[in-house]
């Protein structure tokens, strides 16, 4: 009996390995003896300039090899005029490798520039900056500055939103549903907004090699599934206690919003880090207004249980503080890739929150969503966000 079991297990392992071996053999053949078979067309080199920083009397461009073959960067230019430059660590870039090109150049504030790099086959790749601005020095002061900005856009507005708690707590059941649905609408809008932003950054900055759209989709789905799974696990664990369940849901909402705020902080940090100061002021005002509604989303599930100020405040912190970390990441180690990944994680998290809220509405006695309060709540939520996005 034992032997039969062993034999069948061995068979199972073998049957699992055989396809992998065949696949490996086929790939080996294509790269080895069979390479002539697929030798048609010429692979074209491609590089992407991911970041341009303006420093004292110099411009620093971060470039990545995003093509199918190794490349050699042989020349740099500013506004299509050849400039001497240095490239670190060296001018040979293997696939996906990055390098920094340092161009000594007396640039003028707030003027547009185009930075170009030429490869050994004479092809030139360029990226433009609308208005040059000095990149902030990486100092402790800047760390503190980002922390203040993060507090301003993350923690404070969420806390303000939480102040609606007593208002929601005293409301009739239908009005309460309306407010829950309203937050779902607001968040749905934010999620779509984050995806749009992620797609925008990827199409502007990514080479085809990165499959920007699929990266966004994949990360959104994984983020959603991961949080959904964790949330369900936690909710089921504490489902026995009717007291704890709303708390768990609120906690999951605050975690989701926290991940979303990480993406927002990243966008602000990157805007400041890249010297787009006007843009970052716009972002700060926009996010502060948006994020006030996030406090509402956390407060709403808790509104039917007895007030727990400490827990609410803690959730506010969970939702708000990631904005600070986001600002640090965005300001100090920005790359379009990180930005897209974090925005997508945030979008997935937000959608999970939307699902949680809708479930919460349904568990509260509503079997369908075709309730006037719910439908109008979602619609109003999205409209409000759309209008504020135009106004800000």
């Amino acid at each position, binding site marked *: 009996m034992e032997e039969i079991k062993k034999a069948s297990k061995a068979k199972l392992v073998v049957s699992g390995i055989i396809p992998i071996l065949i696949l490996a053999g086929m790939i080996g053949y294509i790269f080895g003896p069979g390479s002539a078979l697929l030798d048609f067309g010429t692979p074209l080199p491609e590089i992407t300039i991911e970041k341009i920083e303006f420093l004292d*009397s110099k411009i620093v461009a*971060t470039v990545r090899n995003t093509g199918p073959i190794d490349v*050699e*960067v*042989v*020349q*740099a230019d500013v506004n*299509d*005029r*050849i*400039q*001497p*430059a*240095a*490239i*670190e*660590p*060296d*001018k040979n870039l293997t696939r*996906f*490798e*990055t*390098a*920094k*090109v*340092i161009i*000594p150049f007396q640039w003028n504030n707030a003027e547009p520039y185009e930075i170009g790099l*030429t490869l*050994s*086959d*004479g*092809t*030139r790749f360029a990226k433009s900056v609308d208005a040059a601005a000095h990149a902030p020095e990486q100092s402790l002061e800047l760390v503190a500055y980002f922390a203040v900005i993060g507090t301003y856009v993350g923690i404070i507005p969420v806390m303000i939103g939480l102040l609606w708690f007593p208002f929601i707590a005293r409301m009739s059941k239908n009005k309460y549903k309306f407010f829950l649905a309203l937050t779902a609408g607001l968040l749905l809008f934010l999620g779509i907004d984050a995806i749009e932003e992620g797609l925008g950054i990827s199409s502007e900055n990514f080479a085809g090699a990165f499959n920007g759209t699929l990266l966004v989709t994949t*990360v959104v789905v*994984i983020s959603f599934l*991961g949080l959904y*799974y964790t949330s369900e696990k936690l909710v089921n664990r504490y489902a026995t206690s009717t007291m704890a369940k709303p708390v768990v849901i609120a906690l999951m909402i605050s975690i989701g919003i926290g991940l979303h705020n990480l993406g927002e902080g990243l966008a602000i940090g990157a805007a400041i880090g890249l010297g787009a100061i006007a843009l970052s002021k716009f972002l700060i005002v926009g996010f502060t207004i948006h994020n006030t509604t996030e406090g509402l989303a956390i407060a709403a599930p808790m509104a039917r249980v007895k007030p727990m100020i400490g827990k609410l405040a803690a959730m506010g912190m969970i939702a708000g503080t990631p904005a600070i970390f986001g600002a640090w990441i965005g300001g100090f*180690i920005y*790359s379009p*890739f*990180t930005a897209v*990944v974090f925005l997508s994680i945030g979008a997935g998290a937000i959608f999970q929150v939307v699902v949680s809220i809708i479930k919460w509405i349904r568990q509260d006695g509503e079997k369908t969503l075709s309730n006037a309060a719910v439908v109008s709540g979602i619609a109003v939520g999205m409209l409000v966000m759309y209008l504020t996005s135009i106004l800000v």
Partner: protein
Amino acid sequence: MNLVKTMKGKMLISLIAVSVASVIYFTFLVVNINAAEQPRTFLTHSGALIQTTGDILDPVGYAGKPLEFNPDEYMREFSYGRVSKLPDGTTLREFTIIAEDDKIMEISPGVFFNVWIYNGTVPGPTIRATEGDLVRVKFINNGQMPHTIHFHGIHKSEMDGVFESVGQGGGQFTYEFVAGPVGVHPYHCHVMPLEEHISRGLYGVYIVDPKEGRPPADEMVMTLNGFDTDFDTENNFYAANTIPFYYQHHPIQINANELIRVYVVNMLEFDQINNLHLHGNLFDYYPTGTSRLPSIYTDVVTFSQGERGIMEFNYAYPGKYLFHAHKTEFAEKGWTGLFLVKDSVESKEYGEK
């Protein structure tokens, strides 16, 4: 929590590990791994100092192996052909020019481009004859497409290099004409698409000297050209004699108080005009070199495509003097050079070989 023990838990953990690892990979690759290395300092041609642990990208301060094409040699190399006398006393000059179109040449330090060439280089050899000589050019096309040679000058229709395209893979044609008129002329391929056949490098200079000769001088050729290496019908590189910034790094050495004669031919494609500005001096300019009298005494001369002429000047003061396109875009993309005027006046021999 027994997250680690369950299958679901393991999957979740591996998923998180993969995503975190990929984010870190793409985020932190930017960090310079050579940070510990001692930085070296470079002085660039713009005067700026660069400190780096990496490589230097400077078309002027290039200190690598010498380029295949040497503008210094090209500049003062005149091809007079195989000389013989015909029974009637006429001088016969015989040349052989071979066209190829599969050569990859380093046209700027590190930049490799498929050039089309006469006798192995861009520009082709400088053909030189005296007015009235019989010029016979045996043309062999070793390229992969038809080519010709179209000489500017006075000749019969069938010697114009337009209607008799010479087939690829060893096709031959012999161009024969009497050298004239006196001056400096271009020659180039005249097969369609014309812009491509010229801009890729199928051109050269053809000089016809007057029978009585010109006053002795230090003579040189400057072919103003450029390359469109990314095929967007705009030049990426500009130069006098092919290599961008070459003469800025290797100044042309001339003597003070000595007559300098420059045969300038503008073979630049894509751009409507090109020009030349000489620093610290003015020159006599002879358009097309056909007249014995200069048309102007100036320091800037402008050329449309195919235009050419002869410049004559001498420097009174030793030192370094720039010459460059006053169309500064071209200057900043390589069409810039230096004369180094030396004090010593050594006697030099000139004249025909």
